[in-house]
């Protein structure tokens, strides 16, 4: 579903040019959840932004559902394949739009029929009551905002969701709810997730396979079973795993 080969991501120009991601390759199968883990600055968010089309200065090949995408130009078809759920539920939703118009926006952009009914259906799918349609973001909680953000990402029936640390800004109790919601949606709709996180607990809960990133490279790829059993090869992965066990 997602096929990334030799991805290089750059920031800045001239002498300031920074090579943030160096030759990253990985594949995510349909219906799978792939986790990119690593500390901040490891380049995991850069990979996500390049795939999403938010950052355009990259080289290499990114294929979504079989067709490759151009770094500078996205077609409408490309856009409908992929949606992103952001880390910060406060910054991801327009403060002056109601929940309903936030969720309806992608439907309006793509000219889909009957946005009103779709919004109610999407709210139900993310377990929010229909009356939330008319609320403003400042009238709902962080966890509820993140559900709105997920509903918006689902609106176009995109087969791929990019999750940028979707729970790190939430309370622990709310985190579990949002993660379970994401799990349920994946199995109901057959979604493919690419998730970026630094939280090994979340990885163990959500991801089928994991790529460990450090200094812009994937240093190790492993399955969830291998992670849980501790069959890790790279000392850095071992270190990440052990810190997570101590904390969690």
């Amino acid at each position: 579903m997602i096929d990334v080969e030799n991805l290089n991501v750059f920031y800045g120009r001239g002498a300031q040019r920074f090579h943030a991601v160096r030759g990253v390759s990985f594949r995510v199968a349909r219906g799978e959840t792939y986790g990119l883990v690593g500390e901040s600055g490891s380049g995991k968010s850069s990979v996500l932004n390049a795939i999403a089309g938010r950052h355009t200065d990259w080289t290499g090949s990114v294929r979504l559902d079989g067709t490759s995408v151009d770094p500078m130009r996205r077609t409408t078809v490309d856009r409908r394949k992929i949606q992103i759920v952001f880390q910060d539920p406060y910054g991801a939703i327009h403060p002056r739009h109601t929940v309903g118009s936030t969720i309806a926006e992608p439907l309006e952009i793509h000219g889909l029929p009957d946005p009103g009914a779709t919004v109610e259906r999407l709210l139900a799918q993310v377990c929010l009551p229909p009356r939330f349609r008319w609320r403003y973001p400042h009238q709902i909680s962080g966890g509820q905002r993140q559900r709105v953000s997920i509903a918006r990402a689902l609106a176009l029936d995109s087969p791929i969701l990019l999750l940028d640390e979707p729970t790190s800004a939430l309370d622990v109790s709310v985190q579990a709810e949002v993660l379970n919601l994401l799990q349920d949606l994946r199995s109901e709709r057959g979604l493919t997730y690419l998730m970026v996180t630094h939280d090994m607990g979340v990885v163990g809960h959500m991801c089928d396979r994991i790529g460990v990133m450090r200094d812009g490279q994937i240093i190790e790829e492993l399955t969830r079973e291998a992670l849980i059993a501790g069959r890790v090869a790279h000392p850095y992965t071992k270190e990440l795993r052990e810190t997570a066990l101590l904390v969690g």
Partner: protein
Amino acid sequence: MTDMAVPSRRHRLHAWLVDEEVTSGRQARAQQWYRGFRSLTSSPVAVLGLLIVAALILAALFAPWLATHDPYRQDLTLTLLRPSAEHWMGTDELGRDVWSRLVYGARTTLYITILVTVIVGPIGFLIGAVAGYAGGWVDVILMRVTDILLAFPSLVLALAFSASLGPGIGNAVLAIALTIWPPVARLARAETLTVRNSDYVAAARLQGASMGRIIRRHILPICLPSIIVRLTLNMASVILTAAGLGFLGLGAQPPIAEWGAMAASGREYLIDAWWLTTFPGLAILTVSMAFNLLGDGLRDVLDPRNG
């Protein structure tokens, strides 16, 4: 205690406006407005500004009923009369009633301020938002033009424009509008820069929203409050510039009642007939101060950081 059983219409309306359980888009918008109105009226200074501006609007609307005389009828037997029961603010050098001219002058003042605001708001916002959102060469070109116009004092620039366009209210409006949009554009650009990289704008872009849609749906609601505040505060300087142009003979032409022109024509009789300059001057002072107070109040209400 016992009369709580039957809520009055007023109470029901209030409950509808503060209810947490919003059931329609209309109610959600009404609640936003209601919250804004409540916080605006909680500041006495802003209320004072609002009242004076409302009085100005009412005076302009009902000028024919408020005026005691025909503002244009000259009577050379009644020149330069002191304020009296018959002529509340006296008469001018052509025997016209100052109070009536002042009331009709409110129309001219309001006409100029509204027209300038309606021209300047959209132009300033569009130039600033496009420059801020597009960036690169577009930004450089638009902002250098803005800087050139900003470099001149606005009254001097307005003078130059109305001198070349010819005197008259229409040209005065045009001249003032040309000098007032640059600060609005700067403001819109600054606000746009703060939100163009936000996640919600990124989300809209990833969904495929066009630049026009992002500017209209996402950037406009963020910029609007500060632009409204800026324009309200600007109204004071619009009034002063209009009065200045009128005073110099480049604004409204006689016999149109305009406060600046009235003050100017009374200048020759300042010693003998103080009321000719004093009352229009007081009117200019009061109204521009009221717009300033209202602008300050609106700034507190509309600050997006207040939710």
